[in-house]
């Protein structure tokens, strides 16, 4: 891997990032709005108040628009796996097969079947059956997300698998270990709860627009109450799962954690920089060191976040790159050597198998397995170790903006809930405008979360095992570049269509109950 075509790697990465980010513009609203609609319909069935039916149908229509525009955009990511990332696809094939197959079946049966009842079934099936269908759509969409997040979590923390050197691919040895790995469970709950927050902000923002326009006041206030309670509960869960993410990251992806915190030198009682400004460092001799020009710290909080112990030692970028014997941290040089042994042993094993020399094959296999945990580092034996450090400023700032916005949403939910309960929200135009303009902020926070997760783990496609330089297909960079722009045009078109249809439907507002049979 000494001669890597970086334009191929970079364009392939850029294309995957573009499609994943666009895809994720559609996903979170589906995940959260489905539950909000289910809560609203539950209120309708419980109270038989027709106003709740109008409210449910309005938000259900927006859910339908988002679902229709976003559906199948994720398929493009699977095309990219097969074309641009064939080494990776083969390497992980069996791990991904089961979760993605379950996702496909689940999405098809649960979502597709019950979505039809949800939209076409008003006045045709019983109220209770309709409500059950709405809940099953919500549960189905969220379970679909579970499987794709399990697959993603496996790349961050490969558990429950064994590498088969004859087939050059990982094979699942324990499905439950893959599904219930601490990283997978935490990632699922953190991602879906963040989607619930985004959806709550969306509902509150749109309702705020109605209040600003002095339209549909009762509809808007009832919607705000459901969404702000849902958003508050989801926000509390995000704090818990966010804490879990930090601990998982500190244990399994210490470089991502150090980059996210801009921690260069590891320390005990490590402080957390709540706010910080990074200084550009031009010193070539120091690996990716970024000094702070300004910071506000909370003493020992980083150690507590990472290991639930104020005295715990949190390794920094320097410890991970150069090693730290006192804390049993191997240097990247040592890991690249072990990785190289692992790669060479795999080649030896394959050759010995081909010539029928079983004793050499067995020795090579033992050496390979002993060093497999460092396999991916072998590709950096003759390369700059800087390539093994992710983009620190991007990870650091993305995390802080995301968390800052998270607290902004909590404050918004609380304030707007109290004001609506006291029936004073209609006069608070500043709060209403804040709620409205928080809609794009929720999308920004959501994307930033993925930037922390995915940029922070670079260069790994599979943590410590497979870097992006070894995962790409040997195809022409120009073809990847062409499809990058093709996707950019298609996705932008879909986004514009979504926004236009959404806005026109919002401006129309909820239909009067008498004519609402044709609103689906």
């Amino acid at each position, binding site marked *: 891997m000494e001669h890597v075509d970086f334009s191929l790697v970079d364009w392939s990465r850029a294309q995957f990032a573009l499609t994943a980010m666009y895809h994720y513009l559609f996903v979170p609203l589906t995940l959260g709005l489905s539950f909000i609609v289910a809560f609203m319909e539950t209120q309708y069935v419980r109270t038989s108040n027709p106003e709740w039916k109008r409210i449910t149908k309005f938000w259900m229509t927006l859910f339908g628009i988002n679902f229709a525009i976003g559906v199948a955009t994720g398929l493009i990511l699977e095309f990219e796996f*097969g074309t641009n990332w064939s080494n990776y696809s083969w390497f992980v094939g069996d791990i991904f097969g089961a979760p993605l197959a379950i996702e496909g079946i689940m999405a098809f049966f649960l979502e597709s079947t019950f979505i039809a009842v949800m939209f*076409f079934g008003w006045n045709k099936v019983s109220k209770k059956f309709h409500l059950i269908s709405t809940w099953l759509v919500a549960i189905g969409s969220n379970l679909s997300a579970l499987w794709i997040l399990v697959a993603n979590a496996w790349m961050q923390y490969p558990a429950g698998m064994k590498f088969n050197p004859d087939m*050059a691919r990982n094979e699942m040895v324990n499905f439950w270990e893959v599904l219930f790995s601490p990283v997978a469970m935490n990632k699922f709950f953190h991602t879906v709860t963040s989607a619930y927050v985004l959806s709550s902000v969306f509902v509150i923002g749109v309702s705020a627009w109605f209040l600003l326009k002095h339209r549909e006041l009762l509809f808007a206030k009832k919607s705000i109450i459901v969404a702000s309670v849902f958003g508050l509960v989801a926000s509390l869960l995000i704090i818990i799962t966010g804490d879990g993410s930090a601990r998982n990251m500190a244990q399994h992806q210490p470089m991502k954690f150090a980059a996210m915190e801009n921690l260069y030198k590891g320390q005990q009682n490590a402080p957390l920089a709540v706010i910080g400004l990074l200084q550009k460092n031009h010193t070539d001799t120091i690996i990716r060191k970024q000094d702070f020009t300004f910071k506000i710290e909370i003493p020992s909080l980083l150690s507590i976040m990472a290991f639930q112990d104020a005295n715990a030692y949190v390794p920094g970028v320097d410890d991970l790159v150069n090693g730290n014997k006192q804390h049993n941290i191997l240097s990247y040089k040592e890991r690249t050597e072990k990785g190289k042994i692992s790669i060479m042993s*795999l*080649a030896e094993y394959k050759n010995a198998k081909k010539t029928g020399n079983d004793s050499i094959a067995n020795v090579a296999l033992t050496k390979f397995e002993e060093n497999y945990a460092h396999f991916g580092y072998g590709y950096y034996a003759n390369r700059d170790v800087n390539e093994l450090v992710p983009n620190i400023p991007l990870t650091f700032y993305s995390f802080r903006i995301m968390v800052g916005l998270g607290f902004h949403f909590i404050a918004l939910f609380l304030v707007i809930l109290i004001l609506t309960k006291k029936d004073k929200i209609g006069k608070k135009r500043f709060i209403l405008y804040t709620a409205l303009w928080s809609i794009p902020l929720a999308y920004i926070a959501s994307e930033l979360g993925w930037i922390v997760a995915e940029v922070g783990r670079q260069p790994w496609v599979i943590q410590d095992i497979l870097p992006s330089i070894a995962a790409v297909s040997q195809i022409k960079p120009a*073809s990847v570049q062409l499809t990058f722009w093709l996707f950019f045009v298609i996705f932008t078109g879909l986004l514009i269509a979504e926004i236009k249809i959404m806005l026109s439907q919002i401006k129309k507002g909820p239909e009067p109950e008498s004519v609402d049979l044709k609103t689906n």
Partner: protein
Amino acid sequence: MLKNIFQFYFQGFKNMTIGKKLWTIIIIKLGIIFLILKLFFFPNFLNTNFKTDEERSNYIINQLTK
């Protein structure tokens, strides 16, 4: 039973308003994804270039160990 299910979907689609626009978008989108992107721009690299799993695994091992 089957007739009822057919009628349920038929009436549902017939009475759609905004749904018609959305279905048009879905159909165009799926057409672009499967008939243009998948066919012309995204062939499966390993399936196109190799016939058997053995050939594919040998190629990958060569790629990973070169």
